[in-house]
């Protein structure tokens, strides 16, 4: 699913949906980036470089300073619960607060299309959380975040624990959502995956965010 010319021109025509300027915590250095509607940006970098902390800071889960705007609206003017419904975050190890799958979804019927897309039967609603594999948990957490209908989705290695078939299913689900206008910031260790799914790549090193100078899309087949 390489980024094609049409996709690129589509998002460059509008204005960026998410703007981050000098976002910093006591652990990450000031980071600036912007994300366009219908754009998927990969975030790479060695373990412990601050990728997760960057996503958490954008989702406002840790104390942070700097300017973050969505559609031109300053984050500080939006109540935090509302902000997190607009800017969803799926962590690498999602948490569960009830015993069964269905209890984590406000509306199971709304989730059904995604549930099938990611290879679950409808009865998965009654499955106990304790029985789920790491991969199943990640996929269900992704669905849980998508049905809130966020404008921006922050993904922390959503395919790290998945088998190849699930990686492909998750990849195509995100791509479809991105085509429909979702902006995604996708943390991944996998260079090939980053090139395949993302329009741009950011690199986090020693707590600093930089745009990766692409030797691509020139090499993309």
């Amino acid at each position, binding site marked *: 699913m390489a980024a094609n010319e049409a996709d690129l021109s589509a998002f460059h025509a509008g204005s960026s949906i998410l703007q981050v300027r000098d976002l910093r915590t006591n652990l990450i250095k000031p980071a600036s980036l912007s994300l366009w509607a219908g754009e998927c940006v990969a975030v790479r970098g060695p373990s412990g470089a601050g990728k997760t902390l960057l996503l958490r800071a954008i*989702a406002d*889960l*840790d104390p942070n300073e700097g300017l973050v705007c969505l559609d031109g609206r300053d984050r500080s003017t939006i109540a935090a619960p509302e902000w997190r419904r607009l800017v969803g975050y799926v*962590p690498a*190890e999602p948490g569960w*607060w009830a015993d069964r799958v269905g209890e*984590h979804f406000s509306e199971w019927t709304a989730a059904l299309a995604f549930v099938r897309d990611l290879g679950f039967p409808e009865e998965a609603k009654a499955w106990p959380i304790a029985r789920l594999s790491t991969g199943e948990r990640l996929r269900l957490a992704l669905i849980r*975040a998508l049905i809130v209908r966020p404008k921006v989705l922050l993904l922390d290695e959503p395919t790290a624990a998945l088998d190849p078939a699930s990686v492909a299913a998750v990849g195509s689900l995100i791509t479809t959502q991105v085509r429909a206008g979702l902006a995604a910031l996708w943390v991944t260790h996998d260079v090939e995956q980053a090139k395949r799914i993302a329009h741009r790549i950011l690199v986090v090193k020693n707590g600093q965010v930089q745009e990766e100078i692409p030797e691509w899309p020139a090499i993309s087949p």
Partner: protein
Amino acid sequence: MASYIALTYWQLAAASVFVFINAGISVIFGLRVHRSLLIAALRMTVQLALMGLVLTTLFSMVSPLWTGIAALVMVLFAGHEAAQRQERRLSGWWSYGLGTGCMMMSSVLVTVFALITALRPNPWYDPRYAIPLLGMILGNCMTGIGLGLDNLTTSLVSRRASVEAQLMLGATRQVAAAPVMRDALRSALMPTINSMAATGVVSLPGMMTGQILGGVPPAEAVKYQILVMFLIAGGTGLGAVTAVFSGVYRLTDGRHRLRLDRLTAAKAA
């Protein structure tokens, strides 16, 4: 008045034999509880002996000032004990201040209420009634608030992912922390609920037994005990609810973030 049997110091010493036997067992089997057991027994003896002296003086004075000071000292000690029992504490003054504040609020409120409405001694602050009543309520509040806060802080740490999962989906901090708060309150109130349920069948409470040993007719002692149990349950509930709600408020912030950085590191066992 003097229908009780006075004890001699030798009789007390004889009763302590079993504590020493327990300490001996701990030494022989390497259970490592003898030290804390003996220190606690020694503390109990010294503290109660001092309390006997203090109460004798207070009862003879019937001064509102000195009764108030004695009550304050008891509350401050209870706050210290409750804070000591936390595995993870709130940072800074919160650790001591929150527990102590809640204890003072709930136990003083309940004690004064009982003095004014039920017991009605003259004057209402008569230390012969106020101090023992406060002591009983405070002791239970201390256990309840200590358990509630300890359970709250340790579960917020261990269940951080599940609390944050709800926050990530746009839940408010009240909603996200609700499962942890429920468990913390349950653990705070369980000893009180259990003791109410078992009282009279399994256990004969210390105060009632004490009154009976002191010559009060059982039917009268029972009335006092029921009064005290209600006060204990009310005071512990009130204190624990306030402490757990305030604890959640302190460990989250206005942007609905979980703020575990406001906790100190776990105490080494």
